[in-house]
């Protein structure tokens, strides 16, 4: 959490995260190069690099895409989410290296414009198996560039979280394009089933995890409570100390926190990246987002100074051990009276 922009707000966790990431990338490439030299001793350096960088980027994209649903299914994966954007930027650089070398090797030295060559060197656009796979990779790379370029909090704050999230959902289109790029590219020449099996398994894992997580979220949304005036949402005992119970009221999620001898309710949506505040906990008297540690005071939904983020609050009452909520949100940062637990 930072109240001003800087390239990277380094802290101990981020340093460890990036150190492990860098080690993982270097170890993967080294292992790939050694194995490639054993299996394909006649391959040129350019070919090995193209393959190593391409497979590294594709593998990293799978890891990135699995982190979100894994966190929805099990909070133990949340540390992976903390600095996920560095994974994304690293993946973009690996993909760019792959694309640049392929561009250089296959298109740069011809007698037509190399950018045109990507689209016309294979013109079998009516074919299924022979469909040009390189334009698919190029379009995916453009999307990955847009995401990497707007990954900083500057863009998140200026585009607003919903727009930024919407833009970054293009990663799913990029993933679909890359599956096409791989299936119509390398898998057309690869006769053994090993690579096809690996890609197919990755596809099943990514799609399966996202569908399971999405179904779980949809099931929670279906438990929406309706009513006017104060609506009973749960018993005080249902809320763990310094934690929250998430309820769905008026088509949006509300996090009802219990702390000290009080109960307060705020929007479940963090202002930073729309993280689930209700899955966080109260630390030092502040609700702390489980994704990136953004903090808000439970009674007025504002971040402690010098920070300026604000979230909507909700009026709350306790009646005979039952928690009652007014579904109408207060404007972001509005102070409310916490309900006292007798």
């Amino acid at each position, binding site marked *: 959490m930072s109240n001003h922009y800087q390239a990277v707000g380094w802290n101990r966790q981020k340093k460890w995260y990036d150190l492990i990431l860098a080690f993982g990338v270097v170890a993967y490439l080294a292992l790939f190069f050694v194995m490639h030299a054993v299996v394909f001793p006649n391959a040129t350096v350019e070919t090995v690099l193209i393959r190593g960088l391409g497979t590294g980027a594709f593998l990293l994209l799978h890891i990135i895409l699995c982190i979100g649903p894994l966190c929805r299914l099990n909070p133990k994966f949340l540390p992976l989410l903390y600095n996920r954007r560095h994974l994304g930027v690293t993946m973009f650089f690996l993909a760019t290296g792959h694309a640049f070398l392929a561009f250089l090797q296959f298109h740069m030295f011809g007698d037509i414009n190399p950018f045109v060559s990507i689209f016309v060197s294979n013109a079998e656009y009516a074919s299924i198996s022979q469909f040009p796979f390189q334009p698919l990779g190029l379009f995916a790379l453009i999307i990955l560039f847009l995401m990497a370029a707007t990954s900083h909090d500057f863009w998140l704050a200026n585009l607003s979280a919903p727009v930024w999230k919407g833009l970054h959902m293009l990663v799913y289109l990029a993933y679909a394009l890359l599956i096409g790029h791989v299936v119509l590219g390398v898998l057309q020449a690869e006769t053994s089933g090993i690579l096809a099996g690996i890609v197919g398994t990755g596809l099943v894992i990514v799609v399966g995890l996202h569908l399971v997580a999405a179904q779980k979220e949809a099931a929670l*949304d279906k438990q929406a409570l309706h009513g006017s005036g104060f609506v009973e949402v749960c018993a005080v005992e249902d809320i763990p100390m310094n934690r929250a119970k998430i309820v769905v009221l008026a*088509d949006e999620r509300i996090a009802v926190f219990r702390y000290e001898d009080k109960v307060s309710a705020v929007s479940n949506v963090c202002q930073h990246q729309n993280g689930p505040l209700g899955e966080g906990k109260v630390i030092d008297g502040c609700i702390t987002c489980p994704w990136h540690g953004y903090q808000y005071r439970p009674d007025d939904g504002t971040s402690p100074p010098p920070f300026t983020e604000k979230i909507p609050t909700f009026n709350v009452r306790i009646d005979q051990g039952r928690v009652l909520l007014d579904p109408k949100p207060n404007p972001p940062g509005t102070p409310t009276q916490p309900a006292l637990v007798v």
Partner: protein
Amino acid sequence: MIRSLRKRHQRIFWLVFLVLPPVFIVGLFNREPIPTVQVFPEALQPLPKAFSQTWETIAEDGDFSALLKTQQSSNGWKLQVKPLKEAAFPDVLVYLAIEKSPDITPQSLLLGGMSGAQLRQFHIPQQMVEHDAYILFYSLGIKKMVASLRLPAVATKPRR
């Protein structure tokens, strides 16, 4: 994540679930067979000599001089022209003609272009083989014949 984005995410992944696995399977099952060599062929036989019979001379016309060389190859006669110094004329075209003439005639056969002192190789049309002929150098830039070099019949005559 807010509810609208959650719904969008769910719809996207149902779409991905419906589209990508079929694309993956169709892509795999439509693979074109790649021929593989099971048995290595016999060791390669020595290649026949690509060129046989050569003739060469240095010919000149005024300030222009060139090394001329003919070779018989499996698909006809080749003529190599290597100017001994830069041909300082713009857009030089090289023709072959039976007769020497101050201009290009309909009977002149275009062999190709030439520039500077670069070595150029041309195919000699079959109808010019075993004929006395002239190599004509015509500057398209100044619209003028700049040199004519004699190519005797012996240059394209098979040796006995």
